[in-house]
């Protein structure tokens, strides 16, 4: 693989005694969309702030295009950051907001762009984001969705080396969010500028990412393609970050090449596994409904989820989610048999 555009090595950032980022290693390649997924407070925003230079790391190093970034200010890094709360210049029109990143460098000694070039770039960005009609309106008179488009526009007019987006869609309503995330992914890919996109929304992560980095408690837990992370999560913690409904987790043990739940229910065969405690993760779609046997499950709730239905059932001493097709009707209280698709289940050593 080619050398990465952005390299983070053991980057650490502390706030007082708390480590917001601990020894983060991350690579970003040209043209790649990397989504950093993690719950609130995982250190996602801190990561972006360190990358764009608003904060200095307490340890480790960053390099952009092979150049060490220590002591390089945000203005010189040539990255564009879209904030969660838009951050437009309120008394300027949309056009001036979009022009600003193009005019600013000239004032601080950079290369000045020709007026025609500025106008052309602003209009292209506006057309791409469908905000041409808003160009002469002051930023403070825009709705949330419009502001966010302008904020994204302000990032794309510049053709930076890197886009950094901090949950840019989280302040928008669900419909707009879904529409914009598709637009954004298509747009960024067409520009060919790599992007680090931070979100706590797994839907956004799965739909946009070339690779996902799961960040929890300031640590990168796993980096991989959406498929890898969904199918082979490296820990129960990562498994819980992706997938709707949540993955079913069992504290289990291997006995005589079979997996038994804590309550003694036989879950599935485990050929070749040494006896002992393990943890098992099974996604809802990897549980099959079979004829009820001695270890039957009891249906507690049936949720219609469009093309499928979601069963919430009591099985092996705990609550499990089962995703099944719509062909069969289930009732609350019904006894069903469940079988784990053992080649799809994930086993982790017990802690």
């Amino acid at each position, binding site marked *: 693989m080619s050398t990465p555009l952005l390299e983070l090595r053991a980057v650490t950032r502390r706030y007082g005694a708390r480590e917001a980022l601990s020894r983060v290693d991350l690579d970003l390649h040209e043209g790649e969309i990397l989504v950093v997924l993690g719950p609130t407070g995982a250190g996602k925003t801190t990561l972006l702030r360190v990358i764009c230079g*608003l904060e200095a790391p307490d340890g480790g190093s960053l390099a952009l295009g092979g150049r060490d970034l220590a002591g390089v200010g945000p*203005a010189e890094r040539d990255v564009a*950051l879209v*904030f969660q709360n838009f*951050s437009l210049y309120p008394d*300027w029109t949309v056009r001036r907001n979009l022009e600003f*990143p193009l005019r*600013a460098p000239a004032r601080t000694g950079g290369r000045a762009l020709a007026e025609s070039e500025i106008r052309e770039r602003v209009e292209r960005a506006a057309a791409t984001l469908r905000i041409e009609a808003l160009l002469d309106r002051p930023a403070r*008179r825009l709705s949330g969705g419009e502001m966010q488009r302008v904020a994204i526009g302000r990032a794309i007019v510049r053709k930076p080396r890197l886009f950094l987006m901090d949950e840019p869609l989280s302040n928008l309503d669900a419909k707009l969010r879904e529409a914009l995330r598709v637009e954004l992914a298509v747009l960024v890919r067409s520009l060919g500028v790599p992007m680090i996109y931070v979100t706590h929304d797994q839907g956004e992560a799965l739909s946009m990412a070339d690779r996902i980095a799961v960040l929890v408690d300031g640590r990168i837990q796993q980096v991989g393609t959406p498929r890898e992370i969904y199918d082979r999560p490296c820990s129960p913690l990562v498994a819980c970050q992706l997938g709707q409904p949540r993955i079913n987790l069992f504290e289990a043990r291997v006995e005589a090449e079979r997996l038994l739940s804590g309550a003694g229910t036989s879950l599935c065969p485990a050929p070749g596994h040494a006896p002992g405690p393990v943890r098992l993760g099974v996604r809802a779609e990897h549980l099959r409904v079979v004829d009820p046997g001695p270890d039957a499950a009891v249906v507690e709730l049936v949720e219609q989820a469009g093309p499928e239905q979601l069963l919430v059932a009591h099985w092996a001493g705990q609550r499990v989610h089962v995703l099944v097709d719509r062909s069969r009707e289930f009732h609350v209280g019904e006894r069903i048999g469940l079988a784990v698709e053992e080649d799809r289940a994930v086993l982790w050593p017990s802690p």
Partner: protein
Amino acid sequence: MSGRRLQWWFVGPALALLVLFNVFPLLFNVVLSFTNAELVGAEREFVGGANYARVFSDPRFAEAIRRTAAFVALAVSIELALGFTLALSIRREFRGKALLLTALLVPMMLSPAVIGLFWNLILNGNYGILNQILGALGLPEPQWLTDRDWKFTSVLLIDVWMWTPFMMLISLAGLNSIPATLYEAAQVDRASAWTVFRRITLPLCAPLLGLAVLLRATDALKQFDLVMATTGPNDKSTETLSTLLYQVVFRDGKLALGSAYACLVLVLVIAVATAFTRYLEGLNRRPA
């Protein structure tokens, strides 16, 4: 008791006090201004617009208006500029900020009479500490409170000293309400410091600063206590509308003439305040 009558019981006392102490005196003042009433003596006759005619032909009134206007304009703009600059320089957190803030707020908390008195001591031409310092430095020692060319400046100086903290406090509140991410976005966008100030700091502070200017301006229009405590009324170089009024009514005893002055001052203050609030509303009407 019906709801309507209950309402009157709640509003009544406040309303009665308002009528007794605000509305009645105001109307009484208007009535007086059309008579020849004196402070002493019970005789009064209706004289029509004679008092107003006198006021308008009186160069002293015109002079007081000019001086008051100059005072308001100078005091408020200096206080705004100084206060805002101070606020900008202490907006960051640093050790001892709370102590410094408290110290800076003291002048605002003191009674103007007290301030007038101790500035009298500071500015005294013969034994005042300011002139002692100036003398020690080999600089000229003006008679701050008695020299005709310096009196007005002295009163202005004291007012600035007293009210700059107020402007600073409001500016600080305005500055603190600006989201930090706006500054960070500007930083990433490679904006110059001037652009950040001109495009973020100033416009976002403007409505609050406007309010501070309005409050200070209406207050400065009524400037009375500092003049009384330093040069006293009836002083050609420092006579403001309020001290002129005091002189006419309480020293010269011309109650009716003073009432006419007061009515005109009132109209003036209302006009200025209305114009200003209109402007402020315009600023605030732009949705955030």
